[in-house]
């Protein structure tokens, strides 16, 4: 198995995440799209660390990405709970008070 096949898996994960973020109207669904995008990037990091001269640096960066994704999920979830408290729904299309 070469580097290319892992990069293609990462590409599929990334594109699925982007489409998920673009089409879902549920706030939690958007968060899942973000997780997919970060995972696609992580697959690329670890694959490069195995197949090129990057060495362990790729794995360390992917560890940081995992930790930061967990932190991002916690904050985004509390924002989503606040949104739900204010609007009684999680539909992100309802958060349009700032439009001109």
């Amino acid at each position, binding site marked *: *198995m*070469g*580097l*290319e*096949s*892992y*990069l293609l*898996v990462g*590409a*599929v*994960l990334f594109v*699925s*995440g*982007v489409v*998920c973020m*673009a*089409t*879902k109207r549920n*706030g*939690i*669904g958007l*968060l*899942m*799209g973000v*997780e*997919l995008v970060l*995972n696609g990037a*992580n*697959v690329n990091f*670890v*694959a490069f660390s*195995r*197949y*090129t001269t990057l*060495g*362990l640096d790729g*794995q*360390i960066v*992917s*560890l*940081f990405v*995992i930790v930061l*994704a967990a*932190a991002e*999920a*916690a904050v985004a*979830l*509390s*924002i*989503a*709970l*606040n949104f*739900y408290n*204010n*609007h*009684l*729904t*999680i539909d992100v299309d*309802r958060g349009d*008070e700032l439009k001109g």
Partner: protein
Amino acid sequence: MTYEKILFFIFAMSACGGALGVVLAQRVARMAFWLIVSLGSVAGLYFMLHADFVAATQIIIYVGGTLVLLIFGIMLTATGPHVKIQTSPGELVMGAAVGVTLLFLIQGTVRSVDWNKAAIVTSGGEFQQNEGQGYNPTGQGNTIRPLGMALLGLRPDKDLGAPEEAGLSSGYLFPFEIVSIHLLVVLVGASYLARAKQRTRPTV
């Protein structure tokens, strides 16, 4: 077909299928299930890439932590049983078109690069000759000790056997400390944001 190819095929198929399931599923709870499938098989891909610690972290933090958090979010923000938040068909078609275009763009880029020029043969790594018996080199999947030392600022995996004039490689002690402070701030901030308040009337 070697075992490695078969395993890679299984893990890659379930990772991609799980990601597609997240996009196509209509209910949030099913999206969470497909996300578990996808993230779990990505962890399997990490094991195949000889990154055992990253794979274990993926399972523990993502599947065990982040997804449980997301499922709690689904529970706490549940609307009525008959309310479905649907995407309009026009947006779905547009999103699918953009996604397919983006996928073709990325895979064309990946295929047009000659990765063999950038890759080195990892089977006989540079430091393998220096190791004594009973020590698994990093290239064979025992990455916990080198990763821990790199997070403390030491890089024996790069510096051992390197020419002396190359100097010492950089470690990751400072980013590690920044991430620890960051996690503390995030926990305080998240619990401040999500604290129980009196529910206000919807403004719309």
